């Protein structure tokens, strides 16, 4: 009964509504018109409520899907219209028209969505359709943006504008921004495929072309400036009217096209490339290059390797240039200047980059060791500074200069050669009292101790001690000495043989006055020091002699040999070479030098020579030059200054260095073998080289010879089975 009733009710309900077969069409017409008005921008005259209700009813009546279909069609139709009007737009108005229409469309779409909201909700979930808003966008995309007439033109227009901007024109950035925003709103893949990808491709060829042009006409510095500018521009562009994720992509294109592709050419550019920048200290350009090349692969490593070869080359030229090598002090100053220069460049332009610093170090190490006289020269440089005091180009003080010198020292492979020369030069300085600052000397010692160990400096310190002790000895000598001195005083420096690099010398014949007092001293000394032996080193030492000439008295400061010669003239006016030779027993070569300095040097010619030639020959005769004059009362004749060695001296020193190395090598071999017991040949060479590297670089052949010597002396033996292996014999 009730069901009947229900059914009846339902039927009643349904049939009531389904009465009207034109219901859909009527309703649709209302909506269609409404949508049209909306699209004409004329929503004013419409009743929202009515439209909403109509749509609502349609959906309720199960016409939702059909409605959706109709809506879709209608929208399409409107969009097609829009499309045509956009297509018809001329020139630049095209974009504007597109934008305007897009805005309108969005507004309209929202209105439409509002009206159809019920449908939206109902149909979407049930029939899995795209929501109206999205639908509107998709249709826009497919019909308008991707229409055959619009698609290409849109892209071209955008790219054209960007091109113009790149070429320096001002463009309507706002318009482009809205356009790209539109594309982004349509979907990121739309933006990406319809705009970004082609944009990047076009940019690539743009920059490829531009970089080619620039590089033909610009020098390196200018080119890099342009690159920097372009990079900044592109970043700005992206921030103004593109998706920010594009920034990296476009930057990398600029980097590749403008920098990577031309890297070699830029760095190596003649007259303006890296090398020229380094030579001319173009800090700004270098900084820019460093910053820019940091961005590209191998950028820095290329810069580093070009810098390294340049430094090595200029360094090599410097150390092999005979002109430069004539003045050792100047030469070393050049080296220091070079180092300073590059230190500055690395600090200022390369941000103190450690990799560059170590590349610089290895370049220096390479070329400094190309010339085996450099250790000697460095010692001469220090000698010069310690004698004259330091007046560095920048008013640097001693400590700073010595620090810098020690850095050069650190690059030396043959530190033992330096040591030998340093000892010689130090000895000369100390004995002639020529060092300006005791403090500076000690400071240098401390540095050497740090580098070379206590053994080296212990001998040097011995030298200082000797001098101090000598002073004390002299004081007590004079306190006790009461002999007749005839106004003559001596000052003795007693040198311990082991510490000083003195050459053995047979004493010459001293004038009798000197002999007296010196023998008194000897007696005094040996009286207080048992078991020692004293030998006068007449090849060193100096004397102050009061000499009376016709016009004036002078005080002459001369070497010991010179003194012996001059004193002879107290009892004779003229003497031949052989007279002098016999009387003084000074060796030939020294005597010649001595006489030359006394007779042949202008302003110092206290002796007169016949004949008046420049050179000393054995037949010459010498006379006391009564007519000698000098502006100064005290005249210094021929001091002993450390000179660059002559060839034979150099050979001798080198030989001694080689000899000294032998015990070091042997000691190293024994140390190694003692701990390893059994070791093969090549490993010994490696280990020994490592042990000695702070002093010098041993020659593998020298090591081999020492090994054989040790085998001979039964410290080592060869293994019976494998002859390449050695054993330690305890």
């Amino acid at each position: 009964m009730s069901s009947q009733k229900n059914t009846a009710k339902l039927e009643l309900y349904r049939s009531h509504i389904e009465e009207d077969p034109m219901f859909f069409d009527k309703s649709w017409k209302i909506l269609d018109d409404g949508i049209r008005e909306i699209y004409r921008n004329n929503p004013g005259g419409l009743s929202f409520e009515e439209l909403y209700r109509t749509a609502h009813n349609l959906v309720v009546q199960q016409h939702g899907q059909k409605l959706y279909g109709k809506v879709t069609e209608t929208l399409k139709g409107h969009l097609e219209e829009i499309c045509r009007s956009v297509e018809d737009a001329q020139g630049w108005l095209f974009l504007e028209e597109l934008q305007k229409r897009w805005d309108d469309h969005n507004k309209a779409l929202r209105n439409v969505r509002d009206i159809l909201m019920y449908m939206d909700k109902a149909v979407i979930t049930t029939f899995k359709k795209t929501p109206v808003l999205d639908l509107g966008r998709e249709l826009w995309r497919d019909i308008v943006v991707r229409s055959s007439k619009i698609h290409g033109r849109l892209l071209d227009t955008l790219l054209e504008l960007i091109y113009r901007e790149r070429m320096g024109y001002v463009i309507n950035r706002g318009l482009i921004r809205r356009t790209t925003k539109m594309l982004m709103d349509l979907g990121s893949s739309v933006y990406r495929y319809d705009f970004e990808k082609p944009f990047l491709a076009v940019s690539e060829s743009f920059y490829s072309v531009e970089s080619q042009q620039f590089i033909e006409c610009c020098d390196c510095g200018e080119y890099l400036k342009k690159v920097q500018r372009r990079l900044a521009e592109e970043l700005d562009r992206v921030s103004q009217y593109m998706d920010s994720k594009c920034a990296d992509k476009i930057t990398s294109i600029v980097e590749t096209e403008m920098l990577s592709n031309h890297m070699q050419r830029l760095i190596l550019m003649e007259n303006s490339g890296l090398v020229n920048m380094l030579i001319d200290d173009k800090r700004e350009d270098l900084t820019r290059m460093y910053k820019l090349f940091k961005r590209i692969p191998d950028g820095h490593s290329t810069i580093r390797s070009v810098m390294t070869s340049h430094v090595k080359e200029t360094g090599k030229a410097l150390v092999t240039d005979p002109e430069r090598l004539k003045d050792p002090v100047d030469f070393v100053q050049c080296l220091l200047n070079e180092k300073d220069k590059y230190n500055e460049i690395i600090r200022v332009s390369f941000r103190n980059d450690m990799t560059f610093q170590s590349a610089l170090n290895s370049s220096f190490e390479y070329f400094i060791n190309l010339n085996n006289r450099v250790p000697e020269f460095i010692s001469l440089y220090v000698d010069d500074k310690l004698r004259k005091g330091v007046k560095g180009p920048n008013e640097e003080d001693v400590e700073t200069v010595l620090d810098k010198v020690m850095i050069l020292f650190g690059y030396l492979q043959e530190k033992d050669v330096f040591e030998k020369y340093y000892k010689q030069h130090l000895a000369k300085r100390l004995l002639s009292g020529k060092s300006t600052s005791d403090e500076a000397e000690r400071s240098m010692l401390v540095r050497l101790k740090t580098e070379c160990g206590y053994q080296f400096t212990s001998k040097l310190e011995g030298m200082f001690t000797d001098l101090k002790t000598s002073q004390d000895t002299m004081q007590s000598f004079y306190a006790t000495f009461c002999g007749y001195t005839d106004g003559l005083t001596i000052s003795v420096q007693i040198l311990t043989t082991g510490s000083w690099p003195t050459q053995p010398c047979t004493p010459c014949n001293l004038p009798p006055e000197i002999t007296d007092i010196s023998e008194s001293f000897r007696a005094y000394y040996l009286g207080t020091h048992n078991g020692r032996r004293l030998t006068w080193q007449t090849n060193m030492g100096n004397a102050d002699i009061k000499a009376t000439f016709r016009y004036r008295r002078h005080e002459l400061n001369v070497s010991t040999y010179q003194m012996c010669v001059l004193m002879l003239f107290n009892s004779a006016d003229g003497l031949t070479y052989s007279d002098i030779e016999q009387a003084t027993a000074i060796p030939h070569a020294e005597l010649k030098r001595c006489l030359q300095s006394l007779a042949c040097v202008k302003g110092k010619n206290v002796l007169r020579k016949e004949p008046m030639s420049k050179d000393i020959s054995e037949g010459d005769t010498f006379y006391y030059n009564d007519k000698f004059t000098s502006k100064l009362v005290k005249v210094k004749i021929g001091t002993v200054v450390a000179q660059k060695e002559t060839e034979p001296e150099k050979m001798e020193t080198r030989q001694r260095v080689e000899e000294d190395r032998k015990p070091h090598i042997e000691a190293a071999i024994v140390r190694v073998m003692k701990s390893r017991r059994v070791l093969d040949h090549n490993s010994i060479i490696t280990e020994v080289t490592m042990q000695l590297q702070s002093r010098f670089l041993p020659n593998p052949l020298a090591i081999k010879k020492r090994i054989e010597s040790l085998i001979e002396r039964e410290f080592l033996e060869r293994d019976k089975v494998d002859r390449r292996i050695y054993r330690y014999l305890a």
Partner: protein
Amino acid sequence: MVITGASEKVALQSLKASDWHLEGAFDVFYSQPQVAVTNCRHLEELYNRYKEQDADMIMVEGISQLCEDLQVDPQDIVMLVISWHMKASTMCEFSHEEFIGGLQSIGVDSIEKLCEKLPSLRAELKDDQKFREIYNFAFTWAKEKGQKSLSLETAIGMWQLLFAERHWPLIDYWCQFLQVRHNKAISRDTWSQLLEFVKTIDPQLTNYDEEGAWPYLIDEFVEYLIENGVVQRSK
């Protein structure tokens, strides 16, 4: 000992083995595989023939006589082999012990027997192991008493002698090189390493390795050969 002519050592052994019974000892003795029977008395007589008048050694004169009796040249290498058997400490001298001991170990007790043995002695040089021993022995034997090294002249003489037996094509260059470039005494290590060099490295030096820990003198020799175009530098 008198009867069998055996050495004291062998006699003692035989007696021990037979529990100190004399007859048994003879059995033991004669049943032993005899390597050689040497007669002590004969050896002493031989020794006395050659020894110096007023010293208990055989010296240059005695050795000359010995060589004459053997009909060999004193420079003949077989004398070296004999000296080796004798473990002679220095050339041109044999002590009493060395002489007797040496002949016993060779297994002879008369000049005739020794003569017969000469070919087999010479043959010992063909044996690799023995050659090496003899070669290394030669160094100590040929050098002056109290010296550590062998004088160059003597060394060259010895080398020429030794490498006549064991052919080495570079021997002449080696001697030349030493005279021209080295001119100093030869160390023991160099001496013994040279044999290794001869044995392992081929005359064209194709398998010579610079890193091979050869004595530097040998390295210099190789340089010498290359400089003079005798061999090509490898690599």
